[in-house]
């Protein structure tokens, strides 16, 4: 900590520059320098998502290295060979290489291309479709989290929004018979509305009472969980008739997402919907008036308010849309994934993974899309890793959280790889006026 005082970190110098900038602006415009500053959360969102793609790639590489270290440390062969390391060190090194190479080649086989079955193309490309299927809910939920991020809100409530959306869509899908196509559309829309309302509630509380959205979303996650658990064990609500398990009945055929590549693959209509959702979010943020207001509030709510944007209304609007997007993930889980009936664990921690997806994708729609595919690949591959190498799927959680930690702290990645402080990035962050002011001094 002590050397900080001598060498200011990039963030510090940025902050100094920013302060200078504010003073200069205040001087030039004759305004008081004590005007309300941009809320910190808005600045941070900008800083995190302003980083370069190189940082993202390095973060993924670093996280995989850490994952490898963990695999080596817990590998049994490595432990056995380490006992006689000093007499025959090569044994242990070979064992270490085998453990890591085995793990990551299994990851590749399970997520991209199964080269062991290269003779049969239909089987060999199956992992790729699994990756896309696993990515589907991650992208949908990631978009919801990312959209809220762009307004400066932390949507930690993915789990609750997914559960409510899933319960709503699942009820329609399992218990209300309707003609084909219409059934699917109605179930989908009801589910999206469910997610939107659960998300919108957060926006409403934030707008009306100023309640911090992080606390509210965390608490709403648990409320949704217990609510859905209750419904799932209540006959006449969601519980399958004549059953004792807290589980819903199977989704009727008419409401299931149809498969895209035939019944042998899990890839279904959900993936198309997610592509549509990505395009929609891109359009919303970059081409629509509503998206402009979103971004304006995200940049600086005080300035947006002065410009005549109703900030409170924006909070409600963005949380409604974000809730619907996360809800799409919940709908996918019941109508496309657990079609035999769902239980309260249906969210499968996707609501939390979505936060990491949004961070890795830097909250840009297509960034989230590809980040979702990467994490989908990790997820799909982890099952092969567990089956063939005996490595628990939890390793994916570790790798994911390392990725986010590294992305969130570019200075750390830079210091590990001894990269210079990127000047273009630094200049991009520092307003021109401020740089001029520094030179003049």
């Amino acid at each position, binding site marked *: *900590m002590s050397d*900080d005082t001598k060498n200011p*970190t990039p*963030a*510090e110098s940025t*902050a*100094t520059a920013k*302060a200078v900038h504010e003073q200069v602006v205040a001087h030039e415009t004759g305004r008081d320098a004590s005007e309300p500053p941009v809320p*910190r*959360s808005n600045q*941070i*969102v900008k800083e*995190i998502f302003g980083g370069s793609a190189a940082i993202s790639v390095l973060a993924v590489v670093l996280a995989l290295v850490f994952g490898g270290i*963990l695999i080596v440390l*817990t590998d049994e062969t490595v432990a056995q060979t380490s006992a006689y390391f000093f007499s025959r060190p090569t044994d242990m090194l070979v064992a270490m290489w085998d453990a890591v190479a085995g793990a990551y080649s299994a990851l590749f086989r399970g997520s991209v291309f199964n080269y062991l079955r290269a003779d049969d193309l239909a089987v060999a490309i199956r992992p790729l479709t699994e990756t896309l299927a696993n990515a589907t809910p991650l992208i949908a939920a990631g978009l919801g989290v990312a959209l809220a991020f762009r307004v400066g809100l*932390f949507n*930690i409530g993915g789990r609750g929004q997914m559960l409510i959306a899933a319960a709503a869509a699942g009820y329609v899908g399992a218990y209300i018979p309707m003609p084909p196509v219409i059934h699917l559309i109605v179930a989908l829309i009801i589910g999206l509305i469910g997610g939107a309302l659960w998300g919108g509630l957060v926006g409403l*509380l934030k707008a*009306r*009472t*100023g*309640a*911090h959205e*992080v*606390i*509210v979303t*965390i*608490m*709403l996650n*648990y*409320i949704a969980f*217990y*609510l859905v*658990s*209750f419904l799932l064990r*209540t006959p006449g609500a969601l519980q399958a008739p004549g059953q004792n398990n807290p589980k819903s009945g199977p989704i009727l055929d008419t409401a299931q997402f149809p498969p895209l590549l035939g019944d042998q693959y899990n890839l279904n209509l959900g993936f198309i919907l997610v592509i549509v959702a990505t395009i929609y979010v891109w359009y919303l943020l970059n081409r629509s008036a509503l998206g402009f207001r979103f971004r304006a509030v995200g940049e600086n709510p005080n300035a947006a308010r002065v410009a005549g944007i109703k900030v409170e209304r924006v909070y409600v609007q963005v949380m409604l849309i974000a809730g619907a997007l996360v809800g799409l993930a919940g709908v996918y889980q019941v109508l496309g994934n657990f079609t035999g009936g769902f239980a309260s664990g249906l969210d499968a921690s996707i609501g*939390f993974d979505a*936060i*990491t997806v949004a*961070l890795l994708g830097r909250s840009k729609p297509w960034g989230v899309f590809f980040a979702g595919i990467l994490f989908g690949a990790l997820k799909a591959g982890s099952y092969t890793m567990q089956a063939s190498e005996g*490595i*628990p799927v*939890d*390793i*994916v*959680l*570790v790798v*994911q*959280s*390392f990725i*986010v*930690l590294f992305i*969130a*702290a570019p*200075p*750390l990645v830079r210091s590990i790889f001894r990269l210079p402080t990127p000047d273009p990035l630094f200049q991009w962050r520092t307003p021109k006026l401020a740089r001029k002011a520094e030179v003049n001094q």
Partner: protein
Amino acid sequence: MSVVTTTREAGSGLAPSALIVRSWKAPIAFAIFSVLGAVLFIALARGGDTTYRLSNDTDAIVLPSIVLPADATGIATVVLMAVIAVYAFVLVRGGSKVPLWLTTLFALLFLVGFLTWAAAGSTVPLVGLLAGALTVSTPLIFGSLGGVISERVGVVNIAIEGQLLAGAFVAALVATFTGSAIVGLLAAMLAGALVSAVLAVFAIKYLVDQVIVGVVLNVLVVGLTSFLYSTVMTGDPDLFNKPERFERIAIPLLSDIPVLGPILFNQTIIVYIMFALVPTVWFALFKTRWGLRLRSVGEHPKAADTVGINVRGTRFWNVLLAGLIVGGGGAFFTLAAIGSFTKEMTNGAGFIALAAVIFGQWNPIRATLAALLFGFATNLQSTLSIVGSPVPSEFMLMLPYLVTIFAVAGLVGFSRPPAASGKPYIKS
């Protein structure tokens, strides 16, 4: 919004003294609960008697059981609650505040009425109920104490869950290795501090948003502990996951007090540490130089910096201290309550602790009371589900989270976090 603003101004003395701010929240809440009580206890009366068993047959002093007729008790409590509601209404109208003892009395009455109604026709083991509540509450109290310290110094601690889980895991592992529960407890504290250190480094040095770091740390700890549990612990449970447990220590004489004795004075050492810790943290926060500095850093870091307090250093070391406390609470899971580690065994306790911090208004004593309340609600649910209560258990489990939303939304009480909590300090 407006309600909160007026209260804040009145609290800080900014409002003119002639202006009397009347807060109608308490009488309105009392009225709502009285109506709720009337509906449940009278309209939906269940008949029969409720027996409260006060002591076990093996106790030194055996108290007779109390038998309450459910319907009559329901009517009596509703009438008393209505009287309190009217009295509170009169008080507020006259310009004075509703005192805390009145709220406490009201809550107790509602609780008695509810318990008598819900358990009508069966027996409530009062000692077991309260002792169980203390067991559930203990890690929550450790968690909320850590949360209070961390937030008071200006670092939002979403990672309480991760710190508890890390503590639980390391305690199990180390106590099994060394065969000593005390060493396990110390190791758990270090594990909690390690999670805190990551939080502190990222939040204070790299200025990463504290909420993001907290959320990610929770995922990281879940991933790491689950991974190591699956690879290492399940491979040889006797070698890795069979910790030496803390024995219950009965304090002579005190443990023979009827009802309270077995609950409070026949506990493991972790609980006794907790008894000492709560007043210590309160005293240290509000009566010592350390506490004054800590709070000033959390409220107005620039002012603290101006008078020569090292803001980043104060934050760093106190976040570590918070981690030590929470990690020790995590050890309670594996060394006292359950006896071995299982995947994700904290099961959201860290988030309830976070709720207790907010509901307890960032005050160690109030946060402890909130944690006790939440622990009681959780344990009441399991007791009532055995007795066969008409209230679905999920709604009882939901209670802490619902109450917290009401609290942060300003509908119940009012919550104002330390002013600089969550904001990194950048020296300019």
